[in-house]
């Protein structure tokens, strides 16, 4: 198996008498993109703050490449690059001045490296402008550049695609994947959008009310998860329902003038062939939701904050 980059060991956080993180334990491997998902107020940001030492742990420990964030903070955090919540920069300084500022805090960052990260996130043109004039997307890019300056082994990004346009999201997504695959960086991404996390991550941890409710490997779906929700607009409807039942053993339901049923994706072409053979007109076929999303909804439940 691959090496462990970061490990959380029974991490707890109490504020006053209230326990907001109730014992999180999981590991993130090198070269892996790990998604942290949960509704607002579940404890994602608190967990991230503890990972980088902004908040003290009430109990448990976080190790980064085997170094404890509690007892060996400086060595542990040397391996981490992060954006925590919004990428806030000094508004009165230019992009490059901001990067220089952070570069001075770590001895081994060269001028060349600063140029490298600027071109990586595509900020060449805006680097000499004041950050106060940046759009949220540009600040997000600068935030990522800042996190990558010192070639960290663990990259922690809190809502990294927040404020980016679709093209920008695609770019960042590809870049994160490349970091994981080529540079063997462990990437931790938090989000409350499953659709987004599903596309980048290898594994997803679901947090609810400060507890880890599930860890899900993205590519290995169980049989039930392979089933898709299918919607079909056909005439005549009754005949189509009968054909699906007799030839494919599928019980379809009729709602809103459409047929609804569950099926594996691979079986759909055969169904269409049958329907066409029997002269049924097909107007529309749509795969509505993946069952993975359903599953997460069940896990997370309503969007309640305790």
């Amino acid at each position, binding site marked *: 198996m691959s090496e462990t980059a970061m490990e959380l060991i029974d991490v707890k956080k109490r504020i006053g008498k209230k326990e907001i993180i109730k014992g999180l334990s999981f590991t993130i491997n090198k070269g892996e993109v790990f998604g942290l998902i949960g509704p607002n107020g579940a404890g994602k940001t608190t967990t991230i*703050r503890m990972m980088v030492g902004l908040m003290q742990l009430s109990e448990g420990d976080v190790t980064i490449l085997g170094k404890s964030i509690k007892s060996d903070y400086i060595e542990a955090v040397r391996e981490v690059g992060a954006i925590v919540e*919004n990428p806030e920069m000094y508004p009165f300084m230019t992009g490059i001045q901001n990067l220089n500022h952070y570069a001075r*805090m770590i001895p081994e960052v060269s001028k060349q490296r600063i140029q490298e990260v600027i071109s990586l996130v595509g900020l060449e043109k805006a680097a000499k402008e004041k950050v106060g004039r940046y759009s949220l997307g540009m600040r997000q890019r600068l935030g990522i550049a800042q996190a990558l300056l010192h070639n960290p082994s663990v990259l922690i990004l809190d809502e990294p695609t927040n404020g980016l346009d679709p093209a920008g999201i695609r770019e960042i997504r590809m870049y994160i994947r490349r970091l994981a695959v080529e540079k063997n960086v462990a990437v931790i991404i938090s989000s409350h959008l499953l659709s987004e996390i599903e596309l980048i991550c290898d594994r997803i941890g679901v947090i609810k009310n400060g507890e880890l409710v599930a860890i899900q490997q993205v590519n290995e779906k169980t049989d039930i998860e392979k089933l898709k929700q299918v919607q079909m607009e056909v005439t005549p409807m009754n005949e189509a329902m009968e054909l699906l039942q007799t030839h494919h053993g599928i019980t379809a339901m009729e709602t809103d003038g459409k047929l609804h049923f569950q099926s594996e994706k691979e079986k759909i072409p055969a169904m269409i062939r049958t329907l066409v053979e029997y002269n049924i007109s097909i107007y529309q076929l749509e795969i509505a939701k993946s069952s993975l999303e359903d599953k997460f909804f069940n896990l997370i439940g309503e969007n309640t904050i305790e």
Partner: protein
Amino acid sequence: MSNFFSLIYNEIAKIYIQKSTWIMYLLLGVIILGLGILANTYGDLNDGYEADTWRETLQEENEELTNEMEEEPFLQDFNLSSIEMNNYYLENDIQPAGYGAWQFVMENEMLLSIVSLLTIIVAAGIVANEFRWGTIKLLLIRPISREKILASKYGAVLLFSLFTLLFVLLLSWVVGALLFGVEGINPHIVMEKNTGFEYVSVINEIITGYGFQLVTLLMMATFAFMISTVFRNSALAIGTAIFFMMVGNQIVFFFMERSWAKYILFANTDLSLYFNGNTPWIEGMTLGFSITVLLIYYVLFLMLSWIFFTKRDVAGH
């Protein structure tokens, strides 16, 4: 160690890259220039005395002052002391030096309260603003201990006050030199002290005058720094520090009768009392006592900043 210098460099750069800092310097410059022009236009300043006629000039001055006094009785106090001063020159056979750059610098001593004000503003913002901007998070997740980051910020405040002080001294001297000329490298003048008239070096007066005021500057800047770190609110830090700086003496005066009054910070900030023969605020206070009290306050302010900055969680706003 080089690491620590880059931290201080960062903090200084953040102070001087902001426009508001330069506006403060601009105002300071305008005030100094204004004072110079004011003194030049309205001030009754002598341009110096001729080596062979200065005795006659002083005598004439004294006569004028006496005449003036008879016509305008309310000038009596002021003119009498001027006459006495002139007599001191005559009796001791010292040729008075003319008004020049050094004396202008000396008289600008009160500008140090503006330097204190600017230092308080910077000290009040240096930690609180990082929280306001949200940049504290990115600042603290570097492989540097929080102690070191706090120390670099405090160091930057002290450097800022030093730079500003030098700016005031230098600009005052230059403005003074341009408007009044320079009267030698180390001019001496006669000044009225508690013990009577004394012939003193102007540069000595500048050093002691500014030096004693630096105590208040340092204490109030450290106080503002502490409030800024503990409450993460620059407005509160500026407000309280300036308030205490202005009413500090009244506070001591108000509690004068109490036995603990001598432990109030402001009863101890004016160390010049012990050198120029004035009586201290409260009987029994000595230089050693005041320095001890000041040190205790100073360490207390720094300890509080240190504890709150290093131990506290950085949570949301």
